[in-house]
């Protein structure tokens, strides 16, 4: 519209935050192929080692690792894209656990990474960790635990832990793991912010996965409403269906905006921005509430056919609900945001919204960055 920028050029004002298009293309092809060749959906979901191998061959299983540590040196923007595309394909692979969380913890602790499949958890003081996704499939488990005001990281071979096999709502392995306390106590002490960031990184990784799956749900719904006929016309022609689908797509778009903003902030500051707690909370809250609308609405539109085992829909909706409640329930995150907002109060609520913090930064982080 305005062809006369007499002040600043656009590049001074904003920075795009999109993932590497080549990466997206490679992954889109890979997962399209995966989707086209995979087996019929099942209620119980197991690790797909063939797919894992293909991802490993492309460097995707170590995407965020530094190159010196054998990783591909990707940032959070690319990692979030990978997580989202994999989730959209309902790909049963532990990308978040192995690379984004596990690999990061190993690097933070200066521990070697042999590339063997990892998962992560935070055992309680008795050495027990619940709901450890893919534990049974891992070669070793990266544990983060708090020990007298210090955070420690240990990389414990799976044959040194007791794994009680369980499954989550998505039918995925989500095991109870019991560590030997000696293995934890001999863990490497890491910086305090590692312990604090773990929960945020986990929450944002889950948000990226849920958004990716929701975007695929939108596509599944759109295909259905174009093809399915009732009362002599495609159901997408009914106003009630249009409004349901519009709501599903809009909530997904809002969740995407919130997640992308948090990812961009994380990428720009390498997670050092003090506004990350708010930014991740916004993503987790919007994603979580969107999940309610998207899961209910999509099943409503798809009707009975969408509740059958053989249909793709539940391979998306079940993980959506399982993951939106990981790394904090929706209620937990809304309470966190409530605490941030009420302590910001009337005069600094907007500052909180735009910067993620209610007070001007006092740290070394540039005060105007990431607003």
């Amino acid at each position, binding site marked *: 519209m305005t*062809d006369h920028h007499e002040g600043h050029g656009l590049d001074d004002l*904003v920075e795009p*935050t999109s993932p590497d298009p080549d990466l997206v293309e490679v992954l889109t092809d890979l997962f399209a192929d995966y989707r086209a060749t995979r087996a019929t959906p099942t209620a119980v979901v197991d690790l797909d080692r063939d797919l894992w191998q293909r991802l490993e061959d492309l460097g995707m299983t170590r995407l965020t690792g530094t190159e010196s540590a054998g990783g591909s040196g990707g940032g959070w923007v690319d990692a979030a894209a990978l997580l989202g595309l994999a989730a959209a394909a309902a790909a049963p692979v532990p990308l978040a656990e192995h690379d984004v969380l596990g690999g990061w913890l190993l690097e933070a602790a200066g521990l070697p990474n042999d590339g063997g499949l990892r998962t992560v958890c935070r055992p309680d003081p008795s050495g027990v960790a619940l709901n450890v996704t893919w534990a049974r499939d891992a070669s070793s488990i990266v544990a983060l635990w708090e020990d007298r005001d210090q955070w420690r990281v240990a990389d414990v071979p799976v044959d040194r832990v007791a794994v009680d096999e369980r499954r989550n709502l998505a039918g995925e392995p989500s095991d109870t793991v019991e560590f030997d306390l000696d293995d934890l106590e001999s863990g490497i002490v890491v910086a305090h912010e590692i312990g604090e960031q773990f929960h945020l990184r986990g929450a944002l990784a889950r948000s990226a996965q849920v958004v990716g799956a929701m975007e695929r749900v939108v596509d599944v719904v*759109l295909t259905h*409403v174009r093809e399915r006929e009732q009362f002599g016309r495609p159901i997408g*022609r009914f106003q009630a269906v249009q409004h349901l689908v519009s709501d599903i797509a809009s909530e997904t778009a809002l969740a995407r905006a919130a997640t992308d903003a948090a990812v961009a902030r994380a990428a720009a500051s390498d997670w050092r921005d003090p506004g990350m707690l708010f930014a991740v909370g916004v993503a987790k809250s919007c994603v979580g509430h969107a999940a309610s609308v998207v899961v209910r609405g999509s099943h409503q539109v798809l009707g009975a056919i969408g509740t059958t085992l053989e249909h793709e829909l539940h391979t998306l909706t079940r993980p959506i609900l399982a993951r939106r409640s990981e790394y904090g329930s929706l209620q937990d995150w809304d*309470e966190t945001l409530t605490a941030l907002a009420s302590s910001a109060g009337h005069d600094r609520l907007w500052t909180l919204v735009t910067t993620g913090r209610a007070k001007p930064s006092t740290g070394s982080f540039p005060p105007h960055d990431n607003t």
Partner: protein
Amino acid sequence: MSTRLVPPGARELPVLTELRLEVRAFLAEQVAAGAFVPHVDTWLTRWDRDFTRELGRRGWLGMVIPTEYGGQGRTYLERFVVTEELLVVGAPVAAHWIAERQIGPSLLRYGTEEQKQAFLPGISRGEVVFGIGMSEPDSGSDLASVRTRADRVDGGWRLTGTKVWTSGAHEADAFFALARSAPLDPAHRHDGLSQFIVDLRAPGVTIRPIISMGGDHHFNEVHLDGVLIPDDRVLGEIGQGWAQVTSELAYERSGPERVLSTFQLLAAAAQAMDDGRLPTDPGLGRHVARLAALHHMSFAVANALEHHEDADTAAAVVKVLGTTGEGDITDYVDTLTASGWALDEELDTLLHAAILQRPGFTLRGGTNEILRGVIARGLGMR
């Protein structure tokens, strides 16, 4: 890749943030000096020509109007952050809102050189106040059904009909009127419409107040009784009115005024929760999160528009979610609050004003029912 309803986001860089903080500091001074009392929905309800002129003096009006027409020649993104700051603080911005949002861009796109010279400098100084005349008593959401007639006469057109819901017409200098310059063809209902620039002081114009349910006067009926519009006050092309009015919808629908109309109420509620005057409740966090996400989404749309990308569907998404959220905030605070002004007089004032304004949030600028249809169309469903 999947259907992308909303353009990718972008990170605001320090230059924009500095502008934001500059505006914010000015507004804080104004509030401290008592120049205005923060309020809800001020882009419709709070007129202050002095304040508007002061914004003009500071270069915060006509921001996307080129300097040769008296504007600032800046970007939609810069205007976006200025707009956000004005809205969140609840500043009295109604006097320039329509001109700044719709009239300026329309004149730039469709106006003659003479029209641009005639109006844009005044708009940029905050001295020329515009309204918009689209709705009619029976038109509702069906804008193509407008019946105001434009009859060809020597040297111009005579407009006859009635426009309603014209906000601020009693304060404004002129408005854009959509009228039928050719008889309705039921098979092509969008043909034969044209836009005219109408001087609201011209002979034949009668303005009558429409009083709102709270007793306030924001809206008007504007009767046009054979008002003469000279040829040089036709906007754009005769017969192209429909295309012209719809082309600006992304600007009208995705702005921060579709998200932030009740921000002052949300902020007062946050304070009341902190002070223990309202119960601590996770709903506050939820509403703050949605508002923050909408801030990002609305910014993404502004960025797309700046890059000349199509964003009609995205704008509809922002408006549906944003205006619903404005109302949700209102209802949320209402459900937390026991009746009685003295719990917190400021909160109660904001709450009551928000309740009385709320019905309009999801109606004005296209009802949310219409917009969900627009979104469905964007998704390829119709």
